[in-house]
């Protein structure tokens, strides 16, 4: 295999692992903050304990996020030296600021964790969460703006291979950036909410009837519902963005070959050798509507785009997976929410709880599918219209062995994380912890 392909696989592997922890890293602080705030406001120890336990698990995830993030940051230079040499002159600013934002977050996280009983006014301890939430959102914003730049580069002029007239801020605020950042943020918040919901639902499904888990589930599902709707809305805007700036990606995702109006939305199906779509569900007018908010709007097809610039057509499936989950999860959350208010027996059924348990992993699958869709859909470009992926890769012949080494590393990290998290919470169940706190408070009251 060529080192280009191997470099792509290694990048794919590292980012796919990193994004799991990155997503949790961006999203969970908000949930900790909400729980902590509810706990303080209602003087409810359950919510306080939620914040405490989530924060404890969160640290483990941050640690693995830090090390995989360090890996990808270095790998960008190791695997794509030509790209970094070129793009480094244009996007160094957001990359640099990401580090600052992360540093800021990490510092306050450290303080938050170790100072539960050190403040006289418990509100002051709560305020420590604000820089954590802001810092993680900012690091997502900065890093995503780099990715947005790769899709719609701007902020420079290329004269005879020389970069001139460089404007770092214009390169940061590209057309792809607003929807991308918004989508990444909302999807991270939604995914984190569903992951925490899965845990609560799992305890209920196993037969635990503790008030603590009920509260946790109700809270996380509500937050999940709100952000799932937001994600879908921004996802729609992302589709409109694609139609205008990267029509080839949208066309490939939709197996849309002829430029035409009244375009249907193609879901699932297979593609024959002659590029015929079979067994697919076609929703009439829906693609035109998605793109132009108008059932007759014209959508560019792949046949109008030179063959060499066609992205791989498999991205259709990634898009399908993401959209399916993106529709399913808000529906599920809505049913749960209605059921909660109207006392439906349905939401206490075991199979329904099993669906709730699945929500977190499903959301994570959607994140992966979304990134694979957008990243594979950018091919053959690494920097659209300016640099091909093949030109950017390292010449080194050792990428293959490094791929194996990193695959083993990530396996160890994932297993380690799972084992540690499970052990951490199993050895210290909610009931035990609540009891301990009660005893401590009683002794303090005396």
């Amino acid at each position, binding site marked *: 295999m060529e080192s280009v392909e191997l470099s792509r696989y290694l990048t794919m592997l590292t980012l796919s692992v990193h994004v799991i922890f990155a997503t949790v890293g961006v999203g969970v602080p908000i949930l900790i903050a909400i729980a902590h705030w509810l706990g303080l406001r209602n003087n409810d120890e359950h919510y306080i304990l939620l914040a405490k336990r989530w924060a*404890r698990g969160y*640290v*483990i995830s*941050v*640690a*693995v996020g*830090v*090390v*995989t993030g*360090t*890996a990808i*940051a*270095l*790998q960008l*230079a*190791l*695997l*794509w*030296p*030509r790209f*970094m*040499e070129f793009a*480094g*002159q*244009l996007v*160094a*600013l957001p*990359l*640099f*600021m*990401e*580090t*600052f934002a*992360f*540093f*800021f977050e*990490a*510092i*306050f996280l*450290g*303080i938050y964790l*170790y100072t539960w009983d050190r403040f006289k006014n418990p509100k002051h301890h709560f305020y420590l969460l604000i*820089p954590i939430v802001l810092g993680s959102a900012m690091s997502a914003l900065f890093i995503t703006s780099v990715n947005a730049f790769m899709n719609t580069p701007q902020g420079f002029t290329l004269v005879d291979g020389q970069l001139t007239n*460089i404007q*770092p801020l214009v390169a940061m605020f590209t057309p792809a950036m607003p929807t991308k950042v918004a989508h990444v943020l909302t999807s991270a918040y939604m995914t984190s909410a569903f992951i925490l919901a899965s845990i609560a639902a799992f305890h209920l499904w196993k037969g635990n009837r503790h008030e603590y888990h009920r509260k946790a589930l109700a809270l996380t599902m509500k937050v999940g519902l709100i952000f799932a709707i937001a994600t879908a809305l921004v996802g729609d805007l992302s589709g409109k963005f694609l139609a205008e700036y990267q029509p080839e990606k949208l066309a490939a995702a939709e197996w849309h070959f002829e430029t035409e109006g009244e375009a249907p939305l193609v879901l699932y199906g297979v593609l024959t050798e002659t590029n015929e779509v079979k067994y697919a569900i076609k929703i009439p007018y829906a693609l035109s509507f998605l793109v132009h908010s108008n059932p007759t709007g014209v959508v560019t097809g792949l046949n109008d785009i030179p063959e060499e610039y066609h992205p791989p057509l498999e991205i259709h499936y990634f898009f399908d997976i993401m959209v399916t989950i993106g529709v399913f999860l808000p529906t599920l959350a809505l049913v749960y929410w209605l059921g909660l208010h109207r006392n439906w027996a349905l939401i206490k059924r075991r199979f329904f709880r099993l669906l709730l348990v699945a929500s977190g992993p499903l959301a994570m699958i959607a994140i992966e599918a979304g990134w694979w869709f957008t990243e594979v859909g950018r091919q053959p470009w690494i920097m659209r219209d300016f640099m091909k992926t093949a030109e950017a890769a*390292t*010449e*080194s012949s*050792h990428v293959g062995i*490094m791929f194996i*080494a*990193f695959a083993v*590393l990530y396996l160890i990290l994932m297993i*380690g*994380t799972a084992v*540690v*998290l499970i*052990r*951490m919470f199993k*050895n210290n169940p909610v009931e035990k912890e609540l009891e301990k706190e009660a005893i401590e408070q009683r002794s303090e009251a005396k």
Partner: protein
Amino acid sequence: MTIEIIGISVLWLFLFGYVIVASIDFGAGFFNASTIVTKKNHIVNTVIQRYLSPVWEITNVFLVFFFVGMIGFFPKTAYYFGTVLLIPISISIILLALRGSYYAFGTYGTKGHKGYTIMYGVTGVLIPASLSTALIVSQGGFIRETATGGIELDYAALFTSPFAWSIVLLSLVSVLFISASFLAYYSSVAKDQGALTLFRRYTWIWSFPTIITALGIMIELRWHNPDHYQGMLSLWWLFVLSFVCFVWSLWLLKKRSYGWSFIFVVLQFALAFYAYGVSRYPYLLYPNLTIYDSFTNETMAYALITAFIFGFMLLIPSLYLVFKLFIMNKPYIQKG
């Protein structure tokens, strides 16, 4: 002062920061593990745990700052170093990843597994060795052209070079020296007599090898890179000052003034580090890259410096808070 020099000075500062903080961290891990083997662990464990818990991410961030800044200010380095260092730096990443995550697993997760502690100690001495290849390669002589006009690392030359090995050796002994000196101070603040005695002894043990390998490297540089050697000779007074700081720090150690002793160790390294950096001016990579021909455009450089200043204004107060709450907080340290 040109903007190129400002850029490299900022980066050199980050690198120096990393060298000091990481040395303390790596060395602490090593001492922690080696005392398990020698069954003296109960003496040092609490001191090390107290110090390490809140600061490990901060150490990592210094490294990330350095190389993100390097690519920002000098994008061409991405091509040269990125291409040739794939294996050594990947090994460093893997070790850093194992070390960082297993530290977190061991500390925040399940309590005290011996395997974690040993792994933490072993990786702590391997990482400086693998990271120092970047420095070695930058001295020139280890990169060769391939048949297709690309570049690659000459492993045979690297592994048979006494110069390369002595840099690896220096990185190891100075890690242990810096760390022991800091931990002696830290245990004196913690009023932990047992740990103090031990770390004072370690500081003595590792001090002389540090100076001897450092001298050895200068002598080997004479053959390996005569230009750089000449540059160092012209800055001889800085190296002499560094040596004076070294002697002074040992004297202070004898006088039981541990805080000042550590400060002079840092000064000793700072002087040598900067003298080394200045003497190789303007080369980033002998003989291919200088800070001038690899520099980014001016607009980006100014943007980065602005971001740096604002970022720092945000960070200094937060770091101060960490310092107040954990590192220099006597009740916290002594609670251990």
